C-alpha cells in the first residue's frame, strides 16, 4: 500500500509540486532568515576569529565585547608575561581610525595594530603583496572587501596612499578578512605604526594576546592571569561568546530578527501545513473507500505519514538547498559589502526539526480526519 500512497501523492504533478514547494519555501524562509541572523552575530566576532596564533585574550575586566576597548597600560603586558604558564604575550591594538583620501573623502577604518616583532594576529590570506612588507614605513595591509568598497570597479593595486591622523599610509598588501559587523574597511599595521595613526593617548594598548604553555590547560592559565593581574583573560571562543552575548542581550537585533524568524516559521508553517492538510482532505473520500475495502486504520495512518515524510524530505532538501544557494549567490555577487549569511550546522538541524514538526502536526490533523471517517461515508 506504500506504493498506492506514493501514487496518490505524486499522481497529480501540479498538486504534488505545489505541496513540495510549500514545504520548500517554508524551509527557505526559516533557514535563510536564521542564517542571516547567525551571520550577523558571527560578524561581531570576526576580528577575534581572524587572529590566529594566540589562544588567549587579556583585557580590562570591564570589557563587554570586542569593540568595547578599554586601553591597558604597558605594565599590564609585563605582568601577563610574568604569570607562570604563559608561554608568550604580545601587544595588540584595535580601534577606529579616520582616513582621508586624495579626493578629500573621509572613511572610518578598523585599525588593527600587530606586535612589531612577531606580527601575531596578521591576516592569514594575502591576496596581493606580502606580509613581510608590513615592516616597511607607513605600511598597511587592507582587506579586499574594503578595497573594493573604497575603489569600486578598480583592479587591486599596491602603492595607493591615504592619510590617517595626518600620517601617510601606504597599501603594501591586500588580504582576505572575515566580514565585520560594522562593515568598515580593515587596515592591519604594526603596533608602533598604529599608535601613530590615531590621536595620542596615555594608554593605547587594547588587548594582550597570549599563548599558554602547552603543558597547562588554557583555562587554567586564564584563571592564573585573572588571579595574578586582576585583568580579564579568556580563550578566543569564550571572548567570541562574550561578544555575541552582549549583542544578544544589549541590542535590539535578537528581538527584531526574532520577529522576522518567527514570522518565517509562522508563514512557513501555515503554507506547508495548510497545503498538506488540504491535500489529505481532498483525498478523504478515497481513504474512506480504502477503509471500506479493508485497509486498517493503522495502514491508513502509515500511508498519510509516508506521504508526509516524502513531502517533508524533498521539500526540506529543496528549501535548504535554495537557502544555501542564496547565501552563495549573494557572496558571489556582492563583493563590496559581503552579506552576513552563515549557515551554521545547527540551522539545518533546527529547520529540519521545525519542518518535521509542521509536517507531523499537519499529518496528525489530517490523520485525525481520516481516522474518524466512517467508511460508510462512501455509500452516501
Amino acid at each position, binding site marked *: *500500500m506504500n*506504493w*498506492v500512497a506514493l*501514487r*496518490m501523492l*505524486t*499522481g*497529480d504533478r501540479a498538486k504534488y509540486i505545489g505541496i513540495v514547494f510549500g514545504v520548500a519555501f517554508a524551509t527557505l524562509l526559516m533557514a535563510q532568515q536564521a542564517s542571516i541572523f547567525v551571520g550577523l552575530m558571527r560578524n561581531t566576532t570576526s576580528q577575534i576569529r581572524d587572529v590566529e596564533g594566540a589562544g588567549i585574550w587579556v583585557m580590562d575586566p570591564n570589557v563587554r565585547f570586542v569593540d568595547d576597548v578599554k586601553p591597558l597600560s604597558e605594565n599590564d603586558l609585563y605582568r601577563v608575561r610574568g604569570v607562570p604558564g604563559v608561554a608568550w604575550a604580545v601587544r595588540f591594538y584595535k580601534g577606529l581610525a579616520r582616513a582621508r583620501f586624495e579626493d578629500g573623502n573621509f572613511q572610518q577604518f578598523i585599525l588593527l595594530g600587530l606586535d612589531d616583532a612577531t606580527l601575531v594576529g596578521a591576516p592569514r590570506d594575502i591576496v596581493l603583496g606580502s606580509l613581510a612588507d608590513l615592516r616597511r614605513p607607513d605600511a598597511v595591509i587592507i582587506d579586499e572587501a574594503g578595497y573594493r568598497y573604497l575603489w569600486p570597479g578598480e583592479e587591486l593595486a599596491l602603492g595607493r596612499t591615504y592619510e590617517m591622523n595626518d600620517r601617510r599610509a601606504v597599501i603594501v598588501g591586500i588580504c582576505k578578512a572575515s566580514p565585520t559587523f560594522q562593515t568598515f574597511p580593515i587596515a592591519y599595521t604594526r603596533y608602533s605604526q598604529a599608535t601613530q595613526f590615531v590621536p595620542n593617548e596615555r594608554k593605547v594598548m587594547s588587548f594582550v594576546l597570549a599563548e599558554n604553555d602547552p603543558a597547562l590547560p588554557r583555562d587554567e592559565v586564564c584563571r592564573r592571569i585573572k588571579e595574578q593581574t586582576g585583568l580579564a583573560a579568556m580563550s578566543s571562543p569564550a571572548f567570541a561568546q562574550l561578544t555575541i552575548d552582549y549583542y544578544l542581550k544589549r541590542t535590539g537585533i535578537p528581538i527584531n530578527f526574532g520577529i522576522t524568524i518567527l514570522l518565517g516559521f509562522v508563514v512557513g508553517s501555515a503554507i506547508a501545513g495548510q497545503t498538506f492538510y488540504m491535500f489529505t482532505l481532498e483525498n478523504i*473520500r*478515497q481513504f*474512506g*473507500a*480504502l*477503509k*471500506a*475495502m*479493508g*485497509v*486498517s486504520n493503522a495502514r491508513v495512518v502509515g500511508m498519510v505519514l509516508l506521504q508526509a515524510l516524502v513531502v517533508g524530505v524533498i521539500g526540506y532538501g529543496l528549501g535548504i538547498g535554495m537557502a544555501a544557494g542564496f547565501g552563495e549567490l549573494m557572496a558571489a555577487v556582492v563583493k563590496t559589502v559581503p552579506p552576513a549569511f552563515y549557515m551554521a550546522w545547527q540551522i539545518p538541524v533546527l529547520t529540519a526539526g521545525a519542518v518535521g514538526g509542521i509536517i507531523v502536526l499537519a499529518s496528525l490533523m489530517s490523520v485525525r480526519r481520516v481516522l474518524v471517517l*466512517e*467508511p*460508510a461515508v*462512501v*455509500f*452516501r
Partner: protein
Amino acid sequence: MTPTDLAVHCRDLTKEFGDGADKVQALRGVDLEVRAGEMTLLVGPSGCGKTTLISIIAGLLEPTRGSVSVLGSELGKLSPRRLVAFRAKNIGFVFQQYNLLPTLTAAENVAVPLLIAGAARRGAVAKARDLLTSVGLGERANSLPSQLSGGQQQRVAIARALIHEPRLLVCDEPTAALDAHSGQMMMELLRRVAVQPGRAVIVVTHDNRVFGFGDRVVYMSDGRVEKVEEQKRAA
C-alpha cells in the same frame, strides 16, 4: 436451503441515528436472508434504509439492535481488526460514485484489493489487466479514471470489486450515474461476471428498469422490508 447457501442472515436489525428529538430510525427490525449464487436487489424510495442496511451487512456500520451473520460469521462478535480483515477478504464493493483513485490507472485501481491483501504489485496489476479484458476494457487498462466515461469507470469499479474473488458483492446504486442503455449494460455485465455459485450479490437500486436482473427483489419502505419477490430466470 442449506446453511452454506445462506450468505447473509439479518435478524431484527434496527439502526438509529442521533439522540432525543433528533433521533432518526433508519431501520426498524429488518429480517432478511440473502442466498449465495443469486443477485438480490434491495429497492425502495430514497430514505427507506437501503444504504443503511448494506452498510451494516458490509460491516461498515454497527446496528443499534439485532444481529447480522455474513458467510457464517456474526459480524457483531468480530473484533474491529478482524472485521477489517473479514471485509478485505470476503466482500467486494461497487460504489455509486465509483471511488476510483484518480491518480492510478484503471489496471492499478483494479489491483488495489490484491495490494490490500499483500499481493506483489506486478502480479496484481497483471491479473487486473486480465480482468479488465473480461469486462471489455482491456484497451483502456492504462487510462486514468478521468480519461474514462462514467460507464467505463463503473466497469473498472466492478472489476476492482471482483479481483480478489469475494464471496459477497455489495453494489450501491451502480446504475444511478449512467444513462438507461449504459445501466442495462452494467447490470448485464454484473450478472455475467459477478453472479456465480458460492457468491452472493446485493444490489441497491431505485431504478425500476433494472429490477428484472435480480433473482430476488427485496422491497423496502420506511426502514422495513415490505415484501420479497422471487423472480424466475432462465438458466
